[in-house]
């Protein structure tokens, strides 16, 4: 076991989130029809950060929802050590929206596939975008993000530790060791 190596510190994450927020608003044609949906669990704090950055820049608080992909996984939910499902919560009408799916780290693309399926069960958005903080490579499905914070090839045997929780020192680290059960 090696010590974790920090790849992004709090300042770098804050700058990246601000840039992503500007890109998202620009491509979506303004914030009026925009909504964010965080993929549980890593995408949820990132969606909250993005919403804050958008509000700062545009003065508009865009709606934010959450999807849990457990029920849509292609490898059945009990592959996880803890198969506990979390709630999906989308309290706004998704129809006609510019919807941005948000996740912290993207790897195989399977989570995103499942999240899109889940999202479409809530209605028919005008467009679905994908925003990730870090693309670590290793795609297994033909899915690409529209907004990327950074790209970092992380070998399959190494693990990315992402901490974006409110009130905590935000950081992304690479550590040796087996994959976490949630694929990060």
């Amino acid at each position: 076991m090696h010590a974790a190596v920090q790849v992004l510190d709090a300042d770098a994450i804050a700058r990246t989130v601000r840039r992503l927020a500007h890109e998202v608003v620009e491509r979506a044609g303004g914030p009026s029809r925009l909504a964010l949906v965080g993929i549980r669990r890593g995408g949820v704090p990132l969606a909250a950060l993005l919403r804050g950055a958008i509000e700062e820049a545009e003065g508009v608080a865009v709606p934010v929802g959450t999807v849990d992909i457990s029920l849509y996984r292609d490898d059945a939910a009990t592959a996880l050590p803890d198969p506990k499902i979390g709630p999906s919560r989308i309290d706004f009408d998704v129809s006609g929206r510019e919807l941005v799916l948000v996740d912290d780290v993207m790897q195989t693309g399977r989570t995103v596939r499942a999240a899109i399926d889940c999202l479409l069960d809530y209605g028919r958005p005008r467009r679905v975008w994908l925003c990730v903080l870090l693309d670590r490579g290793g795609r297994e499905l033909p899915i690409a993000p529209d907004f990327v914070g950074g790209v970092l090839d992380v070998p399959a045997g190494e693990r990315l530790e992402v901490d974006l929780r409110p009130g905590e020192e935000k950081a992304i680290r690479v550590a040796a060791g087996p994959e976490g059960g949630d694929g990060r």
Partner: protein
Amino acid sequence: MSALFPHRHLLGIEGLSAKDIVSVLDTAEVFYEVSRRPVRKVPTLRGKGVINLFFEASTRTRTSFELAGKRLSADVVNISTSTSSVTKGETLLDTLKTLEAMRPDVIVIRHPSSGAALYASQKVGCSIVNAGDGTHEHPTQALLDAFTIRRAKGRLDGLVVTICGDVAHSRVARSNARLLGMLGSKVRVVGPRTLMPADCAALGVEVFDRLEPALEGADVVMVLRIQQERLQGALIPSLREYSKTYGIGPRTLRYAQPDAVVLHPGPMNRGVEIDPATADGERSMVLEQVEAGVAVRMAVLYLLAADPGTGMTAG
């Protein structure tokens, strides 16, 4: 089988831990939300097979299991004995073996004999869910009642729950008393002596003869159906007299807490065990129970039938 619910079958509340029960209730919260989406279906059990094998008449339980399976994308087949080979004299074992050969993942069974679900679990390789066996248990009913109460009251611990009526013949009462006791509710039962079970002490419930003291301070009033088909001999003098002494209505409910809720597993005998206005009133949880039933049964099927996967990461 999963860490969340380490069982292959759901045969009764007996055999479950408080933690198992909370797992089912928490999982059901997720499925409750699924049933309120524009598209009320998730792909979780795609390719799985569920057989509903009902040897007794049932509308809500069978429909509820059927919808639960379908909303999880499982293939659901319903067999009721009036249209099956059972009418040609096939034994329960032969029926089970025949169905097993069709490789279902779950058989949901309702049977008039106590112990039928346990028997089935010993004879077939798939998961068995008990949907009511004789006067023994009806675990999904108890789970959905607990789910309904927890949603209405925010908790189960410390609540006073009064179960009224034909407790002796009621698998619903038996499962509920076990479950609620395990999660910290104080359970009372009340009804004519002839309809009280012999094993009240084992169930850990307090027994009352008269309705008023049994309802005093109750947070939840659970009304049981007078099962006219199960009442052999003269256990009660008449339905009218029963209604006068043990019927739940505005007059008797005054003894319970002002915010007490009323549950009934259905089907109701209006004007016998429950006053029609109470059945339709604002304290009545009857329709909430039905909605909860689908969510709870989705949770049970999910916990029993979702695969131990390949360990593939999601990324």
